[in-house]
């Protein structure tokens, strides 16, 4: 009820000021202003980060994109959009920024949707008449457990949350605006570090909190005055820039005195350099080169180029992971997103290692494919999840020792298992198109590669899984609790051990190992992503619907490959049969009947 009341008061307060008496932004924000604003440190989601990172994910959540096509035809970056929302809320209210996946959600709040597409972007101004109903419905639907919500209900809750974020940002500077009512609610992020050591107060203050603080230091008052000046000089670019520079200096000094904000520049660099994007570009280029290589298999220079491009992609990715480790002060993997980057990097390194031994083009091509798919998944996940990919961690994960040992080991296990599955799939498909006739040793060496990677995988999966048990024993008091994520890890270990034992016992040969390894890929996919979709247990991190589709596509791909391999196997047997018969005939030329009977 209180959220509803608060949302209504926010919504009603912005409404009368949208009538056109307020001036619009006359010119684009200057590059220096964008740079200064983006580099401001803010505290949000439990950590201190650059305002640009906050803006990036806020805009992604609200609009589903990383930039905004404004109604005036400009292309706004997240920071420019954030500046607009906070300093020109009336302008921002006209931007079509709220992405609604299904217009039924807007119809449900009583608005006319006839002029809009089913999936379309709405401006706050368009949504405004439906506000009371939006928050009423969202309040009711929010009471429904997330899993039981219908699609429209989910959309309504999502939209209400996004509108709330927008309104809170638009009113963040109200305490220093003339004539604005005092806001009831504090902001989305906090940008003012307290002037006491971090041990005494960890939380930063919002504008409202600073304005309503009982005892303000002179410095606090100066900050408030600086904020007020920013608001009043918004239309004068030069004065605004100067003021923003002074303001940012003031805040940075305070944060620095507390030992915070030291990694802001590095994080700015991480996002500005688009290192993941460049890595993906390298992998994409390598993929094209790989295609050419398979058309001209003997060209050494193309082979070298392919190797170099894949190596470049892997190096960029390793660099990105390293920078993330430094920013977070954590081992490489502590979130699902990071596990994707890490699996891709490790897979690439393994494949390059194999290639350097074998030089048969397969491993390096596989690395190229793995890199492209891996980074597409990483980007897709970031877009679907819409949350900061460097979030705060829950208490149990606050241990660099176990993150570095258990999580890293198990993720290397995933990586090796998936690489084995990919190579095995190549084997099965190649067998169908008939590599044997061309080069009989090709299949054998490919199968040996699969086996080698599996051996590598089994070490890390087994040790990683047991380490997980030991960690659980340290933190929850039981070594093994049959939790879905634990079971997933166990399934990987069991499947890989079963393959190795079946090979020893002679049950599985080349083809069998490749079939089993290809199926092993689905076991890894189940353990890595599938169990999170079950929504039970201690390891369930939240649902992302797109993951479901991707996961099932992978399952079906692997099953189809195995089925195709099955056809190839049957064909190979059928081919071998007549040969045997012929041989028999040749040996016993006068007993044709019995030979045919055989």
């Amino acid at each position, binding site marked *: 009820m209180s959220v509803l009341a608060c949302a209504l008061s926010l919504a009603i307060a912005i409404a009368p000021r949208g009538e056109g008496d307020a001036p619009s932004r006359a010119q684009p924000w200057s590059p220096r202003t964008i740079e200064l604003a983006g580099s401001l440190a803010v*505290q*949000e*989601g*439990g*950590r201190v980060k650059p305002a640009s990172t906050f803006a990036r994910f806020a805009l992604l959540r609200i609009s589903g994109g990383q930039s905004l096509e404004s109604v005036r035809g400009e292309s706004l970056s997240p920071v420019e959009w954030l500046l607009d929302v906070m300093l020109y809320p009336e302008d921002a209210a006209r931007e079509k920024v709220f992405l609604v996946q299904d217009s039924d959600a807007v119809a449900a709040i009583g608005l006319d949707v006839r002029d809009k597409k089913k999936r379309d972007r709405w401006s706050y101004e368009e949504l405004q008449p439906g506000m009371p109903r939006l928050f009423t419905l969202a309040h009711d639907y929010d009471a429904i457990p997330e899993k039981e919500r219908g699609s429209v209900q989910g959309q309504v809750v999502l939209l209400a949350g996004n509108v709330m974020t927008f309104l809170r940002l638009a009113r963040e500077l109200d305490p220093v605006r003339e004539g604005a009512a005092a806001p009831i609610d504090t902001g989305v992020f*906090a940008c003012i570090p307290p002037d006491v050591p971090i041990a005494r107060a*960890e*939380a*930063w203050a919002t504008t409202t909190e600073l304005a309503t603080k009982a005892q303000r230091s002179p410095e606090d008052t100066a900050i408030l005055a600086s904020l007020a000046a920013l608001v009043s000089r918004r239309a004068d670019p030069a004065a605004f820039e100067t003021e923003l520079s002074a303001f940012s200096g003031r805040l940075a000094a305070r944060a620095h005195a507390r030992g915070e904000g030291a990694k802001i520049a590095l994080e700015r660099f991480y996002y500005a350099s688009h290192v993941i994007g460049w890595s993906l570009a390298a992998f994409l280029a390598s993929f094209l080169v790989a295609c050419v290589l398979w058309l001209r298999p003997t060209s050494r220079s193309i082979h070298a180029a392919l190797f170099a491009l894949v190596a470049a992609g892997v190096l960029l990715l390793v660099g990105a992971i390293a920078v993330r480790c430094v920013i977070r002060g954590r081992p490489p993997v502590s979130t699902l997103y990071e596990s994707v980057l890490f699996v891709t990097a490790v897979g690439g390194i393994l494949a390059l290692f194999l290639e350097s*031994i*074998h*030089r*048969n083009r397969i491993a390096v091509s596989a690395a190229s494919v793995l890199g492209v798919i891996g980074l597409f998944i990483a980007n897709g996940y970031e877009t679907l999840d819409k949350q900061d990919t460097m979030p*705060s961690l*829950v*208490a*149990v994960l*606050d*241990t660099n020792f*176990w993150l570095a040992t258990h999580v890293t080991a198990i993720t290397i296990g995933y990586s090796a298992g998936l690489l084995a599955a990919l190579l095995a799939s190549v084997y099965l498909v190649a067998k169908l198109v008939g590599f044997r006739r061309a080069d009989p040793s090709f299949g054998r*060496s490919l199968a*040996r590669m699969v086996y*080698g990677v599996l*051996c*590598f995988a*089994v*070490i890390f999966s*087994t*040790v990683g899984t*047991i380490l997980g048990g*030991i*960690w659980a*024993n*340290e*933190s*929850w*008091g*039981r*070594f*093994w*609790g*049959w*939790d*879905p994520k634990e*079971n*997933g890890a166990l*399934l990987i270990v*069991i*499947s890989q*051990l*079963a393959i190795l*034992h*079946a090979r020893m*016992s002679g*049950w599985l040969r080349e083809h069998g190992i490749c079939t089993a390894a290809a199926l092993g890929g689905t076991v890894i996919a189940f353990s890595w992503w599938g*169990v999170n979709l*079950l*929504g*039970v*247990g201690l390891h369930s991190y939240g649902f992302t619907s797109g993951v479901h589709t991707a996961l099932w596509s992978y399952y079906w791909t692997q099953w189809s490959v195995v089925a195709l391999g099955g056809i190839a196997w049957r064909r190979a047997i059928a081919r071998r049969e007549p040969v045997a018969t012929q041989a028999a005939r040749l040996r016993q030329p006068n007993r044709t009947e019995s030979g045919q009977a055989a």
Partner: protein
Amino acid sequence: MRASLERALRALSSLRLACVLLLFLGLLTWLGTLEQVTSGLYDVQKKYFESFVLVHHAGPVPIPLPGANLVLSLLFVNLLVGGMLRLRKGVATLGVLVAHVGIAVLLVGAFVKHRFSDEGHVTLYEGQRSATFQSYFLWEIAILEDLGSGRVREHLIPNGRLEEALGSGRVRIAPSGLPFDVEVSRFLRNCAPRREGADANAVDGVVLEERPAHTEAEQNIAGVAIEIVDEKDGMRRQALLWGAESRPLVVTVAGKPWAITLRHEEYPMPFSVALDRFTKEDHPRIDMPKSFASDVTVTENGSSRPVRISMNAPLRSQGFVVYQASWGPAGAGPGTPLYSTLAVVRNPADRLPLAGCIVIAIGLVAHFARKLFRYVRVEGRTA
């Protein structure tokens, strides 16, 4: 005779048996994971992972399967005979042998834990002290005898006895040294009391109504009907006990008062734990705990010492391990006193998994490093 023994031994130690067992274990793990979507972990664990045989229902089709207990026992034998005793010994198999020893250590650890451990929790507000901990799932009837000067003798009827009184079962308990017997019937795993005079099972105008069991078994509140049978005159007294009752039932038999109560099974610890301070820290400005920790005073053999128990840093003493498990009450505002829930496990095999893991890691690395070396050499020659 010798030949058939030899054949049986070979079958038991075969690699193929290992494969089949691993596949069964994988199947059970998979089914047990999927079933957790609909049933609680406690039931799934009992059905798939702590049983010898079970029937899995794939839609309408019942499929009998070996339980994980059976599969793991066979796997242990297979490992012992095939993977260790009959394994060809040599430099080539040394790593495998070591890894197998490690897995055997793990399995032994699992068995010891399964058979000989107690687990539960102790929940304390700041300033409180306890020398016992409570089970999450198991119930017991405690008959308390007043020994005077604040001392009490507890006579306990454990969960196993109560389970015999599930459904229409009825069991008569003759606690030694008491002037009465207790007859237990209508044990309900989860129930709630309701005023009802007319019901046949009503006692004192109240019935215990069965409720569907929670998927989280620790939320169940058990109830039971008892009859107290006076040894001397055979007089019977009916009563109901309920897991969430606020006070025990008090009866007078042989001129002496006895308090009887149904509670989660309680186990003594060889030391007492007093909670001095509980600290919970959130990440700034969001509702996500960053860390929580209990500062406790442990009193053991007459001497006390302060210990800090936090996530990932338990207290170990005399075969008992005390962990920071959770805290409450949920949604408490600032200033509200919090309680700390410490999980307590008595597990004689607590350290075996770590030992097993190290041994396995050594074995696997040795084995596969050797293989890798040969592989690189061979492939390098052919390439």
